[in-house]
Protein backbone atom coordinates (compact mmCIF):
# COMPACT_ATOMS: atom_id res chain seq x y z
CA UNK A 1 0.00 0.00 0.00
CA UNK A 2 1.45 3.31 -1.04
CA UNK A 3 0.67 6.18 1.29
CA UNK A 4 1.84 9.66 2.07
CA UNK A 5 2.93 10.41 5.60
CA UNK A 6 2.07 14.07 5.42
CA UNK A 7 3.62 17.37 4.60
CA UNK A 8 5.18 17.83 8.03
CA UNK A 9 7.18 14.62 7.78
CA UNK A 10 8.43 15.53 4.33
CA UNK A 11 9.48 18.96 5.51
CA UNK A 12 11.20 17.49 8.59
CA UNK A 13 13.02 14.85 6.55
CA UNK A 14 14.18 17.36 3.98
CA UNK A 15 15.17 19.89 6.63
CA UNK A 16 17.37 17.40 8.49
CA UNK A 17 19.12 16.36 5.30
CA UNK A 18 19.81 19.86 4.06
CA UNK A 19 20.82 21.08 7.51
CA UNK A 20 23.45 18.34 7.55
CA UNK A 21 24.65 19.33 4.10
CA UNK A 22 25.09 22.93 5.18
CA UNK A 23 26.80 21.89 8.42
CA UNK A 24 29.12 19.66 6.41
CA UNK A 25 30.13 22.51 4.16
CA UNK A 26 30.94 24.58 7.25
CA UNK A 27 33.07 21.75 8.63
CA UNK A 28 35.06 21.49 5.43
CA UNK A 29 35.81 25.19 5.46
CA UNK A 30 36.86 24.94 9.12
CA UNK A 31 39.28 22.08 8.36
CA UNK A 32 37.52 19.57 10.59
CA UNK A 33 36.80 15.97 9.49
CA UNK A 34 34.75 16.10 6.33
CA UNK A 35 31.20 14.92 6.11
CA UNK A 36 30.40 12.21 3.61
CA UNK A 37 27.38 11.56 1.45
CA UNK A 38 26.32 8.26 -0.01
CA UNK A 39 23.11 6.81 -1.35
CA UNK A 40 21.35 4.18 -3.37
CA UNK A 41 18.63 3.85 -5.94
CA UNK A 42 16.56 1.04 -7.36
CA UNK A 43 13.80 0.47 -9.86
CA UNK A 44 11.75 -2.71 -10.02
CA UNK A 45 9.46 -4.43 -12.44
CA UNK A 46 7.14 -7.17 -11.25
CA UNK A 47 4.65 -9.48 -12.89
CA UNK A 48 2.58 -12.35 -11.57
CA UNK A 49 1.63 -15.39 -13.55
CA UNK A 50 -0.88 -18.17 -12.95
CA UNK A 51 -2.97 -15.69 -11.02
CA UNK A 52 -6.16 -14.01 -12.22
CA UNK A 53 -6.37 -11.05 -9.87
CA UNK A 54 -3.03 -9.38 -10.49
CA UNK A 55 -1.85 -6.74 -12.91
CA UNK A 56 0.38 -8.15 -15.62
CA UNK A 57 3.30 -5.72 -15.18
CA UNK A 58 4.09 -3.14 -12.52
CA UNK A 59 6.99 -0.72 -12.56
CA UNK A 60 8.10 0.69 -9.24
CA UNK A 61 10.79 3.25 -8.55
CA UNK A 62 11.17 1.78 -5.12
CA UNK A 63 14.02 3.47 -3.27
CA UNK A 64 16.06 6.62 -3.53
CA UNK A 65 18.00 7.07 -0.30
CA UNK A 66 20.41 9.82 0.69
CA UNK A 67 22.89 9.20 3.48
CA UNK A 68 24.88 11.96 5.13
CA UNK A 69 27.49 11.20 7.77
CA UNK A 70 28.74 14.19 9.67
CA UNK A 71 31.72 13.66 12.02
CA UNK A 72 31.53 16.13 14.92
CA UNK A 73 34.93 14.97 16.14
CA UNK A 74 36.84 11.69 16.00
CA UNK A 75 34.57 10.30 18.74
CA UNK A 76 31.19 11.74 17.77
CA UNK A 77 29.25 11.63 14.54
CA UNK A 78 25.74 12.06 13.23
CA UNK A 79 24.40 9.52 10.77
CA UNK A 80 21.31 10.31 8.75
CA UNK A 81 19.44 8.52 5.99
CA UNK A 82 16.41 9.97 4.26
CA UNK A 83 14.33 7.61 2.16
CA UNK A 84 12.19 8.56 -0.83
CA UNK A 85 10.10 5.47 -1.42
CA UNK A 86 7.85 4.65 -4.39
CA UNK A 87 8.72 7.82 -6.34
CA UNK A 88 6.94 10.23 -4.01
CA UNK A 89 4.89 13.07 -5.39
CA UNK A 90 3.37 15.89 -3.41
CA UNK A 91 1.04 18.37 -5.00
CA UNK A 92 -2.45 19.72 -4.47
CA UNK A 93 -3.91 17.25 -6.90
CA UNK A 94 -1.80 14.19 -6.31
CA UNK A 95 0.07 12.55 -3.49
CA UNK A 96 1.84 9.24 -3.51
CA UNK A 97 4.89 7.51 -2.09
CA UNK A 98 6.66 8.13 1.19
CA UNK A 99 9.48 10.33 2.43
CA UNK A 100 10.84 9.60 5.87
CA UNK A 101 13.89 9.50 8.07
CA UNK A 102 15.12 5.90 7.91
CA UNK A 103 18.07 6.49 10.23
CA UNK A 104 19.03 9.49 12.31
CA UNK A 105 21.31 9.02 15.25
CA UNK A 106 24.15 10.56 17.20
CA UNK A 107 26.95 8.07 17.84
CA UNK A 108 29.65 8.29 20.48
CA UNK A 109 32.70 6.06 20.16
CA UNK A 110 34.46 5.28 23.41
CA UNK A 111 36.45 2.56 21.63
CA UNK A 112 35.80 -0.05 18.95
CA UNK A 113 34.52 -2.27 21.74
CA UNK A 114 32.01 0.27 23.03
CA UNK A 115 29.95 2.75 21.06
CA UNK A 116 26.64 4.36 21.93
CA UNK A 117 23.95 5.33 19.43
CA UNK A 118 21.05 7.59 20.32
CA UNK A 119 18.20 8.27 17.93
CA UNK A 120 16.36 6.32 15.27
CA UNK A 121 18.00 3.28 13.71
CA UNK A 122 17.07 0.12 11.86
CA UNK A 123 16.83 -2.59 14.53
CA UNK A 124 19.80 -4.95 14.32
CA UNK A 125 17.93 -8.16 13.63
CA UNK A 126 19.15 -10.90 11.32
CA UNK A 127 21.60 -10.50 8.49
CA UNK A 128 19.67 -7.86 6.56
CA UNK A 129 17.49 -5.61 8.69
CA UNK A 130 20.14 -2.93 9.25
CA UNK A 131 20.45 -2.42 5.49
CA UNK A 132 16.86 -3.33 4.82
CA UNK A 133 16.34 -1.17 1.75
CA UNK A 134 19.93 -0.95 0.49
CA UNK A 135 19.27 -3.38 -2.34
CA UNK A 136 22.66 -2.92 -4.08
CA UNK A 137 24.23 -4.75 -1.13
CA UNK A 138 22.34 -8.02 -1.61
CA UNK A 139 22.03 -10.35 -4.54
CA UNK A 140 18.23 -10.65 -4.62
CA UNK A 141 15.58 -7.95 -4.96
CA UNK A 142 13.03 -9.20 -2.44
CA UNK A 143 14.26 -9.87 1.08
CA UNK A 144 13.42 -13.34 2.40
CA UNK A 145 9.70 -13.28 3.19
CA UNK A 146 10.01 -15.83 6.00
CA UNK A 147 12.15 -13.55 8.16
CA UNK A 148 11.64 -10.01 6.83
CA UNK A 149 8.12 -10.15 5.39
CA UNK A 150 4.83 -8.96 6.84
CA UNK A 151 2.83 -11.86 8.22
CA UNK A 152 -0.78 -12.27 9.33
CA UNK A 153 -0.67 -11.64 13.08
CA UNK A 154 -4.41 -11.29 13.50
CA UNK A 155 -7.47 -11.10 11.31
CA UNK A 156 -6.88 -8.36 8.73
CA UNK A 157 -3.60 -7.36 10.36
CA UNK A 158 -0.18 -8.05 8.83
CA UNK A 159 3.14 -6.90 10.18
CA UNK A 160 6.77 -7.88 10.61
CA UNK A 161 7.72 -10.26 13.36
CA UNK A 162 10.03 -7.71 14.96
CA UNK A 163 10.27 -3.94 14.96
CA UNK A 164 11.93 -2.75 11.74
CA UNK A 165 12.91 0.58 13.30
CA UNK A 166 13.73 1.53 16.85
CA UNK A 167 13.88 4.99 18.35
CA UNK A 168 16.03 4.73 21.43
CA UNK A 169 19.56 3.86 22.46
CA UNK A 170 21.92 1.16 21.24
CA UNK A 171 25.25 -0.17 22.49
CA UNK A 172 27.45 -1.68 19.79
CA UNK A 173 31.00 -2.97 19.74
CA UNK A 174 33.54 -5.33 18.22
CA UNK A 175 35.75 -7.54 20.40
CA UNK A 176 38.62 -9.74 19.23
CA UNK A 177 39.53 -12.60 21.56
CA UNK A 178 42.51 -14.17 19.77
CA UNK A 179 41.64 -14.83 16.16
CA UNK A 180 37.90 -14.77 16.86
CA UNK A 181 35.67 -11.81 16.24
CA UNK A 182 32.58 -10.88 18.25
CA UNK A 183 30.18 -8.10 17.36
CA UNK A 184 27.40 -7.27 19.79
CA UNK A 185 24.46 -4.86 19.68
CA UNK A 186 22.00 -4.21 22.48
CA UNK A 187 19.16 -1.73 22.21
CA UNK A 188 16.15 -0.38 24.02
CA UNK A 189 13.59 1.92 22.51
CA UNK A 190 10.01 2.73 21.79
CA UNK A 191 8.57 -0.55 20.67
CA UNK A 192 6.64 -1.31 17.56
CA UNK A 193 3.22 -1.03 19.17
CA UNK A 194 0.08 -2.80 18.17
CA UNK A 195 -0.74 -0.57 15.20
CA UNK A 196 0.19 -2.17 11.88
CA UNK A 197 3.44 -0.75 10.58
CA UNK A 198 4.11 1.07 13.85
CA UNK A 199 7.64 1.67 15.06
CA UNK A 200 7.52 4.46 17.57
CA UNK A 201 5.00 3.78 20.30
CA UNK A 202 5.75 5.81 23.43
CA UNK A 203 3.53 3.65 25.61
CA UNK A 204 5.56 0.62 24.74
CA UNK A 205 9.22 -0.28 25.16
CA UNK A 206 11.04 -2.75 22.99
CA UNK A 207 14.26 -4.55 23.86
CA UNK A 208 16.53 -6.32 21.46
CA UNK A 209 20.03 -7.45 20.68
CA UNK A 210 22.26 -9.17 18.20
CA UNK A 211 25.49 -11.13 18.50
CA UNK A 212 27.67 -12.20 15.57
CA UNK A 213 30.60 -14.56 16.06
CA UNK A 214 33.23 -15.00 13.37
CA UNK A 215 35.57 -17.94 14.02
CA UNK A 216 39.21 -17.79 12.84
CA UNK A 217 39.50 -17.73 9.06
CA UNK A 218 36.55 -15.41 8.59
CA UNK A 219 34.64 -17.69 6.19
CA UNK A 220 31.83 -18.51 8.61
CA UNK A 221 29.67 -16.03 10.52
CA UNK A 222 27.15 -17.13 13.11
CA UNK A 223 24.52 -14.76 14.42
CA UNK A 224 21.70 -14.63 16.93
CA UNK A 225 19.10 -11.89 17.36
CA UNK A 226 16.22 -11.25 19.71
CA UNK A 227 13.44 -8.71 20.06
CA UNK A 228 10.67 -8.39 22.64
CA UNK A 229 7.98 -5.88 23.55
CA UNK A 230 4.73 -5.86 25.43
CA UNK A 231 2.32 -4.79 22.70
CA UNK A 232 2.05 -7.57 20.17
CA UNK A 233 -1.45 -8.15 18.86
CA UNK A 234 -2.91 -5.55 21.19
CA UNK A 235 -1.92 -3.45 24.17
CA UNK A 236 -0.59 -5.65 26.94
CA UNK A 237 0.05 -8.75 24.85
CA UNK A 238 3.63 -9.91 24.92
CA UNK A 239 5.58 -10.76 21.80
CA UNK A 240 9.11 -12.02 21.42
CA UNK A 241 11.22 -13.05 18.45
CA UNK A 242 14.37 -15.11 18.27
CA UNK A 243 16.50 -15.28 15.14
CA UNK A 244 19.46 -17.46 14.25
CA UNK A 245 21.61 -17.05 11.16
CA UNK A 246 24.72 -18.38 9.47
CA UNK A 247 26.71 -17.24 6.45
CA UNK A 248 29.49 -19.19 4.77
CA UNK A 249 31.84 -18.01 2.03
CA UNK A 250 34.30 -20.28 0.24
CA UNK A 251 35.86 -18.79 -2.87
CA UNK A 252 33.01 -18.03 -5.24
CA UNK A 253 30.44 -19.95 -3.19
CA UNK A 254 28.13 -18.21 -0.78
CA UNK A 255 25.57 -19.88 1.46
CA UNK A 256 23.32 -18.49 4.13
CA UNK A 257 20.58 -19.61 6.44
CA UNK A 258 18.25 -17.74 8.75
CA UNK A 259 15.59 -18.93 11.13
CA UNK A 260 12.99 -16.88 12.98
CA UNK A 261 10.69 -17.99 15.76
CA UNK A 262 8.06 -15.51 16.91
CA UNK A 263 5.73 -15.86 19.90
CA UNK A 264 2.65 -13.64 20.09
CA UNK A 265 0.37 -13.74 23.12
CA UNK A 266 -3.29 -14.27 22.18
CA UNK A 267 -6.46 -12.54 23.34
CA UNK A 268 -9.50 -14.08 24.96
CA UNK A 269 -13.08 -13.36 23.94
CA UNK A 270 -13.03 -10.13 25.95
CA UNK A 271 -9.85 -8.98 24.18
CA UNK A 272 -7.69 -9.60 27.24
CA UNK A 273 -4.29 -11.36 27.06
CA UNK A 274 -4.96 -15.02 27.77
CA UNK A 275 -1.40 -16.24 28.30
CA UNK A 276 -1.47 -18.52 25.26
CA UNK A 277 1.00 -17.96 22.44
CA UNK A 278 0.75 -18.33 18.69
CA UNK A 279 4.10 -19.34 17.21
CA UNK A 280 5.37 -18.35 13.76
CA UNK A 281 8.31 -20.35 12.49
CA UNK A 282 10.14 -19.26 9.36
CA UNK A 283 13.46 -20.04 7.75
CA UNK A 284 15.25 -19.77 4.45
CA UNK A 285 18.27 -21.29 2.77
CA UNK A 286 20.25 -19.54 0.06
CA UNK A 287 23.02 -20.75 -2.20
CA UNK A 288 24.92 -18.70 -4.78
CA UNK A 289 27.95 -19.01 -7.03
CA UNK A 290 29.72 -16.07 -8.67
CA UNK A 291 31.32 -16.40 -12.09
CA UNK A 292 33.98 -13.94 -13.20
CA UNK A 293 33.10 -11.73 -10.22
CA UNK A 294 30.09 -10.48 -12.20
CA UNK A 295 27.42 -13.13 -12.71
CA UNK A 296 25.77 -14.74 -9.72
CA UNK A 297 23.05 -17.32 -10.16
CA UNK A 298 21.33 -18.20 -6.90
CA UNK A 299 18.49 -20.15 -5.41
CA UNK A 300 16.52 -19.56 -2.23
CA UNK A 301 14.03 -21.67 -0.39
CA UNK A 302 11.74 -19.76 1.94
CA UNK A 303 9.41 -21.47 4.40
CA UNK A 304 7.02 -19.92 6.89
CA UNK A 305 4.52 -21.64 9.15
CA UNK A 306 2.08 -19.03 10.45
CA UNK A 307 0.89 -21.18 13.30
CA UNK A 308 2.87 -24.18 14.44
CA UNK A 309 -0.21 -25.55 16.24
CA UNK A 310 -2.12 -25.65 12.99
CA UNK A 311 -0.62 -28.13 10.53
CA UNK A 312 -0.56 -27.04 6.94
CA UNK A 313 -0.84 -23.26 7.45
CA UNK A 314 2.41 -22.65 5.66
CA UNK A 315 3.84 -20.78 2.73
CA UNK A 316 6.70 -21.98 0.62
CA UNK A 317 8.54 -19.77 -1.87
CA UNK A 318 11.18 -21.20 -4.15
CA UNK A 319 13.28 -18.63 -5.97
CA UNK A 320 15.79 -18.91 -8.77
CA UNK A 321 17.60 -15.77 -9.74
CA UNK A 322 20.48 -14.18 -11.57
CA UNK A 323 22.39 -11.15 -10.33
CA UNK A 324 24.65 -9.38 -12.83
CA UNK A 325 27.18 -6.87 -11.61
CA UNK A 326 27.36 -4.29 -14.40
CA UNK A 327 29.91 -2.35 -12.36
CA UNK A 328 30.82 -2.56 -8.66
CA UNK A 329 28.02 -0.03 -8.08
CA UNK A 330 25.32 -1.07 -10.54
CA UNK A 331 23.45 -4.39 -10.41
CA UNK A 332 20.87 -5.96 -12.66
CA UNK A 333 18.74 -8.60 -10.93
CA UNK A 334 16.23 -11.11 -12.18
CA UNK A 335 14.34 -13.65 -10.14
CA UNK A 336 11.39 -15.95 -10.49
CA UNK A 337 9.35 -16.84 -7.42
CA UNK A 338 7.32 -20.04 -7.22
CA UNK A 339 4.81 -19.59 -4.41
CA UNK A 340 2.61 -22.13 -2.63
CA UNK A 341 0.43 -20.75 0.15
CA UNK A 342 -1.94 -22.85 2.21
CA UNK A 343 -4.66 -21.03 4.11
CA UNK A 344 -7.26 -22.26 6.57
CA UNK A 345 -10.89 -21.78 5.69
CA UNK A 346 -13.79 -22.30 8.07
CA UNK A 347 -13.63 -25.56 9.99
CA UNK A 348 -10.84 -27.92 9.06
CA UNK A 349 -10.83 -27.17 5.33
CA UNK A 350 -7.88 -25.52 3.65
CA UNK A 351 -7.13 -23.98 0.32
CA UNK A 352 -3.82 -23.96 -1.48
CA UNK A 353 -2.88 -21.12 -3.77
CA UNK A 354 -0.10 -21.70 -6.30
CA UNK A 355 1.27 -18.96 -8.50
CA UNK A 356 4.46 -17.45 -9.80
CA UNK A 357 6.03 -14.04 -9.94
CA UNK A 358 8.83 -12.45 -11.93
CA UNK A 359 10.82 -9.67 -10.26
CA UNK A 360 13.49 -7.69 -12.04
CA UNK A 361 15.37 -4.67 -10.79
CA UNK A 362 18.28 -2.39 -11.37
CA UNK A 363 20.04 -1.12 -8.27
CA UNK A 364 22.83 1.40 -7.97
CA UNK A 365 24.93 2.74 -5.12
CA UNK A 366 26.54 6.15 -5.04
Amino acid at each position, binding site marked *: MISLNGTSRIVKGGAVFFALLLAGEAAISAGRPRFKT*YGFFDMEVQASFDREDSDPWTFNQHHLNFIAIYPLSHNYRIFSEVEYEHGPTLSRNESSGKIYLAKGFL*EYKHSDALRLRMGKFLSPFGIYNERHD*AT*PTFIFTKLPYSVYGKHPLASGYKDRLFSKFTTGVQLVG*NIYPGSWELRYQLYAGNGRGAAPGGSDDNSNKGLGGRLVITPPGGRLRLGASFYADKHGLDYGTLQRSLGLDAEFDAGNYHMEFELLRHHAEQLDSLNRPNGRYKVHLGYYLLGAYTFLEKITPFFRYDYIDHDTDEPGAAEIIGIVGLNISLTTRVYLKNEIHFIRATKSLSGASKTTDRYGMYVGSIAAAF
Partner: protein
Amino acid sequence: MILQTAKKTVRTLLPGVLLLVLSGSMVLAKTAVVVHCDNPIDDISLGELKRVYLGKSTSFVTGRPIVLAENNPLAAVFYENVAEMSLKRFRKYWMKVVFEGQYATPPVVFEHSSDLKEFVGRQEFAIGFLDFADVDSTVKVLTIDGISPESPEYPLKDEAEEEVDKE
Protein backbone atom coordinates in the same frame (compact mmCIF):
# COMPACT_ATOMS: atom_id res chain seq x y z
CA MET B 1 69.72 -5.66 -43.71
CA ILE B 2 67.36 -3.75 -41.49
CA LEU B 3 65.90 -7.00 -40.20
CA GLN B 4 69.33 -8.37 -39.31
CA THR B 5 70.24 -5.17 -37.49
CA ALA B 6 67.02 -5.35 -35.56
CA LYS B 7 67.59 -8.99 -34.59
CA LYS B 8 71.13 -8.17 -33.45
CA THR B 9 69.88 -5.26 -31.39
CA VAL B 10 67.23 -7.42 -29.70
CA ARG B 11 69.80 -10.15 -28.98
CA THR B 12 72.12 -7.60 -27.42
CA LEU B 13 69.53 -5.82 -25.35
CA LEU B 14 67.34 -8.73 -24.27
CA PRO B 15 69.47 -9.98 -21.34
CA GLY B 16 69.79 -6.45 -20.01
CA VAL B 17 66.05 -5.81 -20.33
CA LEU B 18 65.23 -9.09 -18.61
CA LEU B 19 67.67 -8.33 -15.81
CA LEU B 20 66.18 -4.87 -15.42
CA VAL B 21 62.64 -6.27 -15.29
CA LEU B 22 63.54 -8.98 -12.78
CA SER B 23 65.58 -6.73 -10.52
CA GLY B 24 62.92 -4.07 -10.83
CA SER B 25 60.21 -6.51 -9.79
CA MET B 26 62.27 -7.53 -6.78
CA VAL B 27 62.40 -3.94 -5.62
CA LEU B 28 58.81 -3.13 -6.59
CA ALA B 29 57.44 -6.34 -5.11
CA LYS B 30 57.38 -5.06 -1.52
CA THR B 31 54.41 -3.02 -0.41
CA ALA B 32 55.22 -0.83 2.56
CA VAL B 33 52.56 0.17 5.08
CA VAL B 34 53.13 3.80 6.02
CA VAL B 35 51.87 6.24 8.64
CA HIS B 36 52.56 9.85 9.63
CA CYS B 37 56.06 10.38 11.05
CA ASP B 38 54.63 11.52 14.42
CA ASN B 39 52.57 8.36 14.85
CA PRO B 40 54.11 6.50 17.82
CA ILE B 41 53.40 3.02 16.47
CA ASP B 42 56.21 1.18 14.68
CA ASP B 43 54.62 -2.19 14.07
CA ILE B 44 51.23 -3.65 13.16
CA SER B 45 50.17 -7.28 12.96
CA LEU B 46 48.78 -8.65 9.71
CA GLY B 47 45.53 -9.48 11.54
CA GLU B 48 45.20 -5.94 12.86
CA LEU B 49 46.02 -4.51 9.42
CA LYS B 50 43.18 -6.61 8.00
CA ARG B 51 40.77 -5.32 10.66
CA VAL B 52 41.91 -1.75 9.98
CA TYR B 53 41.28 -1.97 6.23
CA LEU B 54 37.94 -3.71 6.79
CA GLY B 55 36.85 -0.88 9.06
CA LYS B 56 36.56 -3.12 12.12
CA SER B 57 39.35 -1.33 13.98
CA THR B 58 38.91 2.42 13.70
CA SER B 59 41.69 3.40 16.12
CA PHE B 60 45.36 2.55 16.43
CA VAL B 61 46.38 0.65 19.56
CA THR B 62 47.47 3.99 20.99
CA GLY B 63 43.89 5.24 20.72
CA ARG B 64 44.54 7.55 17.77
CA PRO B 65 41.75 7.48 15.19
CA ILE B 66 42.52 6.00 11.80
CA VAL B 67 42.08 7.62 8.40
CA LEU B 68 42.46 5.02 5.65
CA ALA B 69 44.29 5.80 2.42
CA GLU B 70 44.38 3.61 -0.68
CA ASN B 71 47.02 3.56 -3.38
CA ASN B 72 44.80 2.52 -6.28
CA PRO B 73 47.45 0.95 -8.57
CA LEU B 74 48.55 -1.36 -5.72
CA ALA B 75 45.09 -1.90 -4.23
CA ALA B 76 44.17 -5.21 -5.88
CA VAL B 77 47.32 -7.02 -4.71
CA PHE B 78 47.29 -5.35 -1.29
CA TYR B 79 43.68 -6.31 -0.49
CA GLU B 80 44.24 -9.83 -1.79
CA ASN B 81 47.22 -10.19 0.57
CA VAL B 82 45.80 -8.38 3.58
CA ALA B 83 42.03 -8.87 3.45
CA GLU B 84 41.92 -11.98 1.24
CA MET B 85 39.49 -10.19 -1.05
CA SER B 86 39.57 -9.16 -4.67
CA LEU B 87 39.24 -5.44 -5.31
CA LYS B 88 35.62 -5.89 -6.40
CA ARG B 89 34.70 -7.81 -3.28
CA PHE B 90 36.48 -5.21 -1.19
CA ARG B 91 34.42 -2.42 -2.79
CA LYS B 92 31.18 -4.36 -2.26
CA TYR B 93 32.16 -5.07 1.33
CA TRP B 94 32.60 -1.35 2.03
CA MET B 95 29.24 -0.57 0.43
CA LYS B 96 27.66 -2.87 3.02
CA VAL B 97 29.64 -1.27 5.86
CA VAL B 98 28.44 2.22 4.90
CA PHE B 99 24.79 1.32 4.31
CA GLU B 100 24.56 -0.65 7.57
CA GLY B 101 25.68 2.45 9.41
CA GLN B 102 28.91 1.04 10.81
CA TYR B 103 31.33 3.56 12.27
CA ALA B 104 34.16 3.22 9.77
CA THR B 105 34.84 5.46 6.77
CA PRO B 106 36.03 3.94 3.46
CA PRO B 107 39.61 4.57 2.31
CA VAL B 108 40.47 7.80 0.56
CA VAL B 109 41.59 6.67 -2.91
CA PHE B 110 44.74 8.08 -4.56
CA GLU B 111 45.68 7.38 -8.15
CA HIS B 112 49.34 8.28 -7.68
CA SER B 113 51.80 7.18 -4.99
CA SER B 114 53.14 10.71 -4.66
CA ASP B 115 49.68 12.02 -3.74
CA LEU B 116 49.17 9.31 -1.14
CA LYS B 117 52.63 9.95 0.33
CA GLU B 118 51.90 13.65 0.55
CA PHE B 119 48.54 12.91 2.24
CA VAL B 120 50.03 10.52 4.82
CA GLY B 121 52.88 12.95 5.48
CA ARG B 122 50.35 15.69 6.22
CA GLN B 123 47.48 13.79 7.90
CA GLU B 124 48.56 12.68 11.39
CA PHE B 125 45.92 9.90 11.61
CA ALA B 126 46.48 8.41 8.17
CA ILE B 127 47.63 4.94 7.24
CA GLY B 128 48.39 3.96 3.65
CA PHE B 129 50.45 1.66 1.50
CA LEU B 130 53.18 2.42 -0.99
CA ASP B 131 55.64 0.69 -3.19
CA PHE B 132 58.67 0.29 -0.92
CA ALA B 133 60.79 1.93 -3.62
CA ASP B 134 58.68 5.10 -3.31
CA VAL B 135 59.15 5.49 0.45
CA ASP B 136 61.10 8.48 1.72
CA SER B 137 61.56 10.38 4.97
CA THR B 138 58.19 12.15 4.78
CA VAL B 139 56.42 8.99 6.02
CA LYS B 140 57.12 6.25 8.55
CA VAL B 141 57.24 2.60 7.42
CA LEU B 142 55.65 0.08 9.77
CA THR B 143 56.97 -3.40 10.29
CA ILE B 144 54.41 -6.19 9.89
CA ASP B 145 54.48 -8.65 12.80
CA GLY B 146 57.94 -7.29 13.57
CA ILE B 147 59.28 -7.89 10.04
CA SER B 148 60.70 -5.05 7.98
CA PRO B 149 60.04 -4.73 4.21
CA GLU B 150 63.79 -5.23 3.73
CA SER B 151 63.55 -8.74 5.12
CA PRO B 152 62.88 -11.69 2.78
CA GLU B 153 60.30 -12.87 5.35
CA TYR B 154 58.17 -9.74 4.87
CA PRO B 155 54.57 -10.90 4.28
CA LEU B 156 53.37 -8.27 1.81
CA LYS B 157 54.91 -9.62 -1.39
CA ASP B 158 53.25 -9.78 -4.74
CA GLU B 159 53.18 -12.64 -7.24
CA ALA B 160 55.95 -11.14 -9.37
CA GLU B 161 58.47 -11.57 -6.59
CA GLU B 162 57.36 -15.12 -5.89
CA GLU B 163 58.11 -15.94 -9.54
CA VAL B 164 61.53 -14.32 -9.23
CA ASP B 165 62.17 -16.26 -6.03
CA LYS B 166 61.36 -19.53 -7.80
CA GLU B 167 63.93 -18.75 -10.47
